[in-house]
């Protein structure tokens, strides 16, 4: 087990953190926007291989962009780099950042495997840099609400919990008028499917709530002929709290924002804690209220809530803000590399158990005789009256 016990030293002396964003696709742009909204953070550069992404970053006010993240790390004096590249590039990017002495905030999953995560964390330890992981879900207001209720003991002992996280993944939903990214469906680039993309967030939330988890069994599936799983179901135990947990995640369900299908239910002795009780009744009304509150804060001198009207994006802001605060204070990040590695270990156990179960089923499956050819005698069925449709 690796640990980063020594205080981290920053590369620049200013109280303002100089931050670069490596990868400004969808989530990278969210981090970029978040960072630009933070006091004492200066987004000095961004890198992306895709020209349109670089142009978006420039339009968002980034002074310098690079088509290669390594070039950015070489050229810029940074305190922090946000690694929002495809997982296949995480290790290499962290190694480069470690050579440059730049702390990193890495998009989940931390790596494609625990082996890769170990090498990544070794490089970080050698470079004495901090590693934070963007496990956003625990920052989401509705999940925070569940955690607070649970901590308050509002339902007593929780023998059972269930968590579901579904979206439409890289293929999206109709009208689907843009090209789907190819790397999330490439096991080499992504390391896996829904379990690494969505399940890993859930593992983090569940460990955050219930302590160390153990995987009991798992099942994976694909709804289309795609190279990675788009559905995963995992049975977990939390020995510390005596809670049995079922987790289901998948990227097969159409998602229509602002509705997001994340469900977390804690079944306790005296009742249920549900994240749905902590969601706005109406996202649009809530958005309007938050917007008014932020506008009023200009008069009252209160700090505005960044991404106030957009419920879910607040979590991304808070996760990065927490990381930056820790870096500024020379402390270990609140969600660090070890947390990221542990979620990967759980995913790996789930993959192994699912594969083992599939092998067992293959062995046990009885030989099925070819079904008799169905000879539905449909001749002579045209005995209904014809109908005429007037157009």
């Amino acid at each position: 087990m690796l640990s980063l016990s020594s205080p981290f030293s920053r590369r620049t002396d200013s109280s303002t953190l100089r931050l670069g964003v490596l990868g400004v696709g969808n989530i990278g742009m969210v981090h970029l926007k978040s960072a630009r909204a933070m006091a004492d953070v200066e987004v000095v550069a961004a890198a992306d291989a895709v020209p349109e992404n670089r142009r978006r970053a420039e339009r968002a006010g980034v002074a310098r962009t690079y088509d290669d993240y390594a070039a950015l790390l070489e050229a810029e004096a940074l305190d922090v780099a946000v690694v929002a590249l495809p997982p296949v590039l995480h290790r290499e990017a962290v190694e480069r950042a470690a050579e440059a002495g730049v702390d990193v905030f890495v998009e989940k999953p931390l790596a494609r495997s625990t082996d890769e995560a170990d090498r990544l964390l070794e490089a970080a330890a050698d470079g004495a840099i901090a590693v934070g992981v963007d496990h956003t879900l625990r920052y989401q207001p509705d999940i925070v609400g569940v955690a607070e209720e649970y901590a308050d003991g509002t339902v007593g002992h929780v023998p059972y919990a269930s968590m579901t996280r579904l979206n439409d993944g890289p293929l999206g939903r109709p009208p689907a008028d843009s090209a789907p990214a190819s790397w999330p469906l490439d096991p080499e680039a992504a390391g896996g499917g829904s379990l690494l993309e969505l399940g890993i967030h859930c593992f983090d939330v569940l460990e955050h709530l219930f302590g160390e988890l153990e995987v009991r069994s798992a099942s994976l599936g694909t709804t289309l002929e795609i190279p990675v799983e788009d559905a995963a179901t995992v049975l977990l135990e939390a020995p510390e709290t005596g809670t049995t947990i079922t987790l289901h995640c998948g990227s097969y369900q159409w998602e229509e924002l602002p509705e997001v299908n994340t469900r977390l239910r804690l079944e306790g002795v005296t009742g249920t804690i549900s994240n749905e009780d902590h969601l706005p009744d109406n996202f649009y009304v809530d958005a309007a209220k938050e917007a008014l509150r932020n506008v009023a804060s200009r008069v009252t001198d209160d700090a505005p809530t960044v991404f106030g009207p957009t419920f879910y994006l607040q979590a991304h802001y808070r996760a990065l803000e927490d990381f930056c605060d820790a870096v500024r204070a020379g402390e270990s990040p609140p969600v660090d590399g070890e947390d990221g590695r542990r979620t990967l270990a759980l995913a790996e156990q789930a993959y192994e158990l699912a594969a083992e179960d599939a092998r067992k089923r293959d062995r046990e499956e009885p030989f099925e005789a070819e079904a008799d050819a169905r000879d539905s005698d449909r001749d002579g069925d045209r005995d209904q009256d014809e109908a005429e449709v007037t157009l």
Partner: protein
Amino acid sequence: MTVSGDPTVRVTRADGDDARTGWTPDLERRLDRFRPAVADLLEGVEIAADADRVTILPDAHYPFHPSSGMVTDPAVVGAVAATIRREHPDAEVSVAGASDDRIDFDRTAAYLGYREALERADADADLVDLADGRRSLRTVSDGDRAVDLRIPERLVEGGVVPVPTLRPTEAGTVAGGMRAIARVVGSGGSTVAGPDEDPAAVVGAVRTIDPAWTVVDAATTYGGRPHASDVLLAGPTTAVDALGAVLLDRDLPADDALSAALEGDDASITVSPIGDVPDLETLRERMPDGELPPADDTHPAVSVAYRLYAAVGDDAVPPQLEARR
């Protein structure tokens, strides 16, 4: 086959001997349901008189799940291909789509499982990307106006069978056989199909290609939500599309291309049920008649309003709420 006279649309139920209807992920079971149904629908229909090449055009424009009703079930396509193969053992039978700027046809076909479906159906059919092949330039007239079309040569030379699913287009019209053809025909810098389609180009493309019959996979339809109706339809393309429009409760006169294609034909079509099929009124009542989900794109007005709010409220503008440029 040209639509004229008394167009008849055949309708049959595709439940085979299966007690459980609706979507099943079991390809073999779906093939068992669709094979006899398709054979009934196409019995006695001349698909490709002298052609040594038949091209099937399914709704395989994007890898949506077939149980959504947004694309044709590859098992239906396999059943159609196998039926044609039986009738035309020496013909070159192909299932075609066209790569576009969103996604390659090969990738869509792979994700939808076309190779396995065609193999299990014993159809001996190839997959063809029409974006790669030669195109024939044709000019069709619309009154005094000439419309240039770029039509894949194989669709001009051989028999063509569109196999769409029953769903609306983004513009709200019935997708159907006409739009399945329009999607693979070019005009100007894009395809003929689309929200701003030129009705003359759509009709011109259909009349030039002159599809044999259209088979509609209405086993699962989409109209704001999916519906498992378990029926298949087949008939002359415009007649089938008209019936599809009726079932989805579309306003026919508002569909310029379909209205233009039907012009001069009888104002009625004959529906011929095969087997135990619910009557049309029942089918129509059960089918949802809604539209596609809204696009994720932020309306420019919303984007401007959010930017204004963000400036006043000292907030950040999420990338998702920025207008695309």
